């Protein structure tokens, strides 16, 4: 079932067009990797879907309902966002930061119910930050903080998960474990995942489908081996990229920097 649908969306910042007719769909249980060069409009698209910005043209549907018809509080129970380089005040504890994910469920006076506490605990275990719960955010490493933000998004118990560079500060173990976790959740809970990934190898290994966004347009969309193709990547990123097949005979291509071409 299609949980997220973007139909011919146009968006400009103060008259400067950034998205020029973007369409894509993500079904429950599916991971769509979004790749593209800096400034292509990936974060902008994510913000449009999270309801932070509104498109000037086109439509976005969440669970088959137009985004515009959602109350923001209800939307936050269905769509969760892990933003690029997000800030959390250093004097929050990890527990308190993850509890913020329950905001759309809380009513005055903001006391967490048993259900909220369970959701927070589960999210912290998934994101491997349970052992940090009483630490202050100011005392965490960059990668630990990134996983706290992921835990916060999971505590929202979303149907659609938007990830903007979720692996940016993670070591290779946590890159893999985070993406495996997300993959597992997508399969088990039927989450629709849209993930911006700069690392083309991670995108290739973990996405069910990949969309390549260039200058506000989807240049290619399809399985990793359909999109991660040398001439496509050269058109998007310029030269200096080598596409190879994996030694383990997987159909997912790998990408290397090619220093011979200037």
């Amino acid at each position: 079932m299609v949980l997220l649908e973007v139909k011919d969306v146009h968006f400009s910042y103060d008259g400067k067009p950034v998205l020029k007719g973007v369409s894509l769909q993500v079904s429950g249980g599916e991971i769509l990797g979004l790749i593209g060069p800096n400034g292509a409009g990936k974060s902008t698209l994510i913000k449009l879907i999270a309801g932070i910005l509104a498109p000037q043209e086109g439509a976005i549907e969440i669970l088959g309902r137009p985004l515009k018809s959602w109350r923001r509080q209800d939307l936050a129970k269905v769509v969760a966002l892990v933003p690029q380089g997000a800030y959390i005040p250093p004097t929050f504890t990890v527990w308190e930061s993850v509890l913020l994910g329950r905001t759309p469920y809380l009513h005055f006076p903001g006391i967490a119910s048993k259900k909220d506490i369970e959701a927070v605990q589960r999210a912290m275990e998934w994101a491997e930050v349970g052992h940090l719960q009483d630490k202050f955010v100011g005392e965490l490493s960059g990668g630990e903080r990134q996983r706290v933000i992921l835990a916060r998004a999971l505590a929202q118990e979303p149907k659609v998960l938007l990830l903007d560079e979720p692996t940016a500060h993670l070591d290779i173990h946590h890159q893999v474990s985070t993406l495996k976790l997300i993959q597992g959740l997508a399969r088990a809970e039927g989450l629709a995942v849209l993930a911006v990934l700069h690392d083309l190898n991670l995108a290739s290994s973990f996405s069910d489908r990949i969309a390549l966004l260039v200058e506000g347009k989807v240049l290619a969309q399809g399985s990793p081996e359909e999109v991660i193709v040398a001439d496509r990547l050269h058109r998007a990123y310029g030269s200096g990229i080598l596409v190879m097949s994996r030694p383990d005979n997987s159909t997912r291509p790998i990408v290397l920097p090619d220093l011979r071409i200037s």
Partner: protein
Amino acid sequence: MLSVRVTLRRRRWLSLAVAVLLLLAVSLIATSWGAAGIPASAVARILLGQGEYPATWQTILFQIRIPRIILGGIVGMTLAVAGAVYQAIFRNPLADPYLLGVSSGASFGAALAIYFVWRFSWGGLNAVSLAAFGGAMLATAAIYSLGRVGGKAPITTLILAGVAIGALLSSATTFFMFTAREAFHTINLLGWLMGSLALADWARIKTIAPYVAIAFGVIAYYSHILNVLQLDEEQAMALGVEVERVKLLIIASASLATAAAVSVSGVIGFVGIIIPHMVRLIWGSDYRFLLPMSAILGGLCLILADGLIRLLFAPRELPIGVVTAFLGAPFFLYLLRRYKKEVFYF
């Protein structure tokens, strides 16, 4: 692992209970401080309704000292809560309740009233108080509308609009101070600008209490949302918060309460900026706890400062800001050194 979190929560509740008891104790003790030398034992018995004492003692206690303590408590609570709220919304450690023109607007209003010797009054408030209240609300409204850009009120433009309007109003206030026809007008204005609780009475309390109560109600309702607003606005929106609406409501409430407090007490600095930081340093940033704790400590701080003025300097009145800063600043520096946490945001 759960137990550590529970311990933290218990520690917070215990601290809050201790603070409340301390507030009550200091309030009681402060009733025996003042110019008229009424012995503490007599005060205690009068309060308990026992013993025969001169009627003037009764009057001093019930019409002067107790209202002064209660007003001090209300003003201190208001400043601390408004400061905490502004720091969250503006995500700026230097934010105080006066950031959006409440003090410059109030001072300008007071200056007008003193300079032109206005004489009207309402609800126990004289012209100076009323003009100060009006000036504060007008200045905040002007700053908020000037700081709006395309349906939103970004925090940086709000702060900068506040700086500009504040400078404009302060220059006018200074002009009135220097060109006043009578020297005592200048002194009055100067005294008002530095804050004092000397004019406290029941009528003033009754007049400002509803504004403060309504504002506190709104702020308390949104206390868990204030946790989210300490993130950036995009994250707050993604967590389901109607940022612009909530921001407007909370800023309006905090400004209303501060304007009401300032109109009867003048501009008292320091409390609104330091108390929330102190709570944040010791107990963390959860506003469901930080707000009540700041309120209690803010009230305590002003009652204590004002009490010390009466105890040490009576019958002379000293601007209360002198005492809050003189004693509070070293204490805060001590806390800053002791809890070397990264409280600030940049």
